[in-house]
């Protein structure tokens, strides 16, 4: 993308029918550090790469709990992500207050998308520069959505955003058909493998990544460093073998595997195209 005379503000169309400010906002997402999400019928796992600016500083928080049944991983302008997480939390609390039940994930992402769209059609605003992977559970099952700065949103079986996310997507494209029936432990391991792909050879340790899980009977929570490191050690000792399908060995992780009813999964697409102008999908 190059500078041109139609990219100064978001309310100016280009002759080719594009809004460059929105596309630039999506570029900001691609520059952020990687975040991935994958889901089975009963669980959703979110993971992100958390690199600190220097050894002296703390890591940027990229995964947020929105409610017991919903969490979000972000990539891009993390300040925008923080603000949107606060909005999402507020919406969940207000819905629970009014209806005494959990806000369905699909409703939340629509509200989020509408909020993002407003910023693509006001001359005094700018688009949010953050992509959100929203993972959650509701009565219709486990869901993973991706919300763009453009105001679009899609449901996924697995997805990755941020820098070098293509490597993670390639890994997940090979394996996504196994995710639906995957056990919780294998899903987390797949998330860690996918995350490792984005590191391009750098060693994966629990200090530079964050992993979070939500599932049937399991509220959204971020796994602590020890648990994550234990899982990483397991598959590194095993000699870089990617976890097998459901016939895989019993869980060896510290957490017990909750037995859950299998919910029918919604029909979903694979990872998005990247060739077309993003808002056109």
């Amino acid at each position: 993308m190059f500078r041109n005379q139609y990219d100064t503000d978001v309310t100016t169309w280009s002759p080719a029918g594009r809004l460059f400010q929105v596309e630039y906002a999506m570029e900001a997402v691609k520059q952020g550090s990687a975040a991935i999400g994958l889901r089975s019928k009963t669980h959703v796992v979110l993971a992100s790469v958390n690199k600190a600016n220097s050894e002296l500083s703390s890591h940027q928080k990229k995964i947020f709990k929105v409610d017991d049944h919903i969490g979000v991983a972000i990539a891009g302008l993390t300040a925008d992500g923080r603000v949107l997480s606060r909005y999402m939390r507020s919406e969940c609390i207000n819905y629970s207050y009014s209806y005494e039940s959990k806000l369905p994930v699909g409703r939340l992402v629509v509200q989020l998308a509408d909020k993002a769209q407003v910023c693509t059609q006001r001359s005094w605003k700018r688009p949010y520069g953050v992509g959100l992977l929203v993972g959650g559970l509701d009565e219709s099952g486990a869901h993973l959505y991706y919300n763009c700065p453009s105001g679009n949103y899609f449901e996924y079986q697995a997805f990755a955003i941020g820098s070098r996310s293509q490597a993670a997507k390639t890994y997940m494209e090979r394996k996504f058909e196994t995710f639906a029936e995957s056990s919780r432990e294998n899903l987390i391991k797949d998330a860690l493998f996918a995350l490792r792909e984005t590191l391009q050879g750098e060693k994966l340790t629990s200090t530079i990544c964050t992993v979070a899980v939500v599932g049937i009977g399991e509220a959204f929570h971020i796994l602590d460093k020890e648990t994550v490191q234990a899982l990483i050690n397991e598959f590194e000792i095993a000699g870089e073998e990617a976890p097998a399908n459901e016939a895989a060995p019993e869980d060896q992780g510290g957490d017990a595997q909750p037995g859950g009813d299998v919910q029918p999964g919604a029909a979903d697409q694979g990872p998005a195209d990247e060739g077309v102008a993003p808002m056109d999908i």
Partner: protein
Amino acid sequence: MTKEHANWSPYDNNGGTCVAIAGAEYCVVAADTRMSSGYNILTRDYSKIAQLADKCSMASSGFQADVRALQKHLEARHLIYQHQHNKQMSTPAMAQLLSNTLYYKRFFPYYAFNVLGGLDSQGKGCVFTYDAVGSYERVGYSSQGSGSTLIMPFLDNQLKSPSPLLLPAKDAVTPLSESEAIDLVKTCFASATERDIYTGDKLEIVILNAEGIRREYMELRKD
């Protein structure tokens, strides 16, 4: 010359009594489960106790619609607090929040008479007692509601520390053990049920201690 009064009131009194007692390592919060209106009983099985946080419970008598709205409001505020601070609210913090929430509606109050009970950050029992507009105080024990006039003097007799002029200042907690405190609460309600028509049916007791939270029930007279 006399002022014209409204022929409709936004409030109703659903009666009932609440008690809370703070111990060295526990807190007991109790309330009856009768809900009335006038001389009628609406239900014999309505809980007046809400768990606001892991280690904090609130019992409220008065107008139960306002009580429920107040409980929901505090629960929502607690969620926000947890998101922002990554931990549960302490009981003293919740006590201040309740006071502020009540005073916020100083000119159209929540018709709710509350006792807040829980463990403070040291694990000691604490009880806070309120009026309808948020005036509050930390105490070792308290009762509110229609039976409070019968129960409070009895608790003073059993639990009040001797004059502070004679002894060094004591903690606002009772030296009673947890089971003794529970028995005392049962005695209070059994007595109040005898003479207060709005108190009875069943007693719900919530006990908070280091292990967590548990509930006990006791049948009361139904007349």
